[in-house]
């Protein structure tokens, strides 16, 4: 089954809606709590990334019997050095974003930690796509 959500850049009030909806579906499917938690944490981090850095984005979710595949794509500044961005603590977030309690430089490392597979593609000046896969038990 498929789910789709748009994300508006800069609107922190909306961050968390896709992850909550996905969580509801996974609970209804009887997926175990630990796996759900990992997926929700990873998706929430990805959502916050779009809100904090990009102009707009989308979340595309596909669930089948054995796994969940989430594609978070945005139109935004892109990431110049993905390897550097993956380092815990590295952040390009603005002061304003940091003051709101985000932008600690843990987003991408946290996604990596909570997913079974993760793939980032990015083009500077165009945008970023994060693909995450979690397998069910």
């Amino acid at each position, binding site marked *: 089954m498929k789910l789709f959500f748009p994300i508006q850049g800069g609107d922190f009030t909306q961050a968390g809606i896709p992850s909550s909806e996905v*969580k509801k579906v996974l609970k*209804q499917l009887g997926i175990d*709590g630990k796996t759900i*938690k990992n997926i*929700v944490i990873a998706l*929430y981090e990805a959502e916050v990334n779009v809100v904090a850095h990009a102009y707009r984005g989308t979340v595309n979710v596909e*669930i089948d019997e054995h796994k969940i595949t989430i594609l978070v794509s945005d139109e935004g500044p892109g990431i110049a050095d993905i390897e550097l961005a993956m380092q815990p603590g590295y952040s390009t977030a603005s002061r304003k974003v940091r003051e709101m309690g985000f932008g600690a430089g843990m987003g991408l490392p946290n996604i990596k930690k909570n997913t079974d597979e993760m793939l980032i593609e990015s083009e500077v000046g165009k945008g970023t796509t994060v693909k995450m896969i979690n397998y069910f038990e």
Partner: protein
Amino acid sequence: MNELPKYHALKVDAAKCIGCTHCMKACPTEAIRVVNGLAVIDHERCVDCGQCHRACPARAFYVEQDDLAKIRGFKYRVILFPSIMIGQFPEKYSENQIYQGLMKVGFTHIFEVEQPMQVLIDSVTEYLANPDVSKPAISTYCPAIVRLIQSRYPSLTENLILRKAPHDMAAHFAIERLLLEGASRDEIGLFYATPCIAKIASVKSPVGERESIVDGVVNMNHLYNEVMKVISEDDENDHSVQRENLSKEGILWSLTRGESCHFGSRSMAIDGIHNVVRFLERVENDQVKGIDFLELRACDQSCAGGILLTGNRFMTVERLERRARQYNSASKISRTTIKVDIEELKQKLVIDFIRSKPLFIFGKERVKAMEKMSKAQRIVCFLPGIDCGACGSPNCHALAEDMINNKAKMSDCVFLQQMWEDEGRIDARKAFLNVQKKWGTDRFKADCNKRGGRNEGF
């Protein structure tokens, strides 16, 4: 462990219910449907929070209780009640006069449940000191919250603090005290005066317990009325010895922040079940960081807002805060005053295990569940999305789910019916009969006493 079957005291009076959907919309677990014009509670889903009782304009919900006469067979007749009960009475009556009133009703011993409070405070503090405890640790004080977590947030069940609530402690305390006075166990009858429905269920079928030690439960508003019949401003009996273990902390325990102020370096208190639901979503998403202790209560203003109380909840809070100032701190009450074996009492506060009971699952087989959910998603596309409730389900999405579980039909949606009529797919008569089947013939009869007839809109 063989747990007791879940007891439900909440019932719908079919003669009063008008199937108005207010309760259905207020329910935090979507446990109510309107069937044949009457509210029907799904007891599997119900967490006993009492939101439906509060929302009902027809006063159709009632709460079963035990007959107070049942107590007469015992030599030692104990009434246990949370301190908020004292906050219900008009200020002209003193604590002693209220106690005397309870004696006149037929009790021989009176125990406010929040004593000896230091024992529970120490027990929870010791529990929280264990580094393996999942944070934020969540209080098990409010039974509606415990059931909500078990069914709707199963992954947070491990965060529940495995310690009992004051009413359990007080029941054991009362028994021990009376045994010391020379009573034998079968001579002691315990009645609990409850401020809410959830406590009834937790007293009658305690979570993680095999049996209840209480002999009966009486609704606090009922007991209040009984006491008001016999209470007198002229009584001068002194019952303060029965309150020698009562403390400031105990009196404030059932109010919001009454618990959380004692535990953890960072703690939070949230009251009102819909607030709690929204907050637990965040906790489950791991968006609440650094918090040690969570006090969650189903009612606004915690137990002062219990649905079986008589007084205004804000006034109750004010009175209790004022009353608390006159009492000593729990830590100042000595072991000689407590009398019973404190270590033994502490042991009785331990809960072995709380099971999660996930309820919101579409079936055990994942592929089938996924098919069902996709189907529900497609059905939602055709529903109006205004959540009017005229189908008898709380919202359009719930109706779609009911349909795929064979509990509802497309024709239950009045919007779809109108459209089908317009398209000539069903005749007007058939459409009307469909609606009548859902709501009963009475909804269509002219009656000036119907809801709205007395301008009760606000």
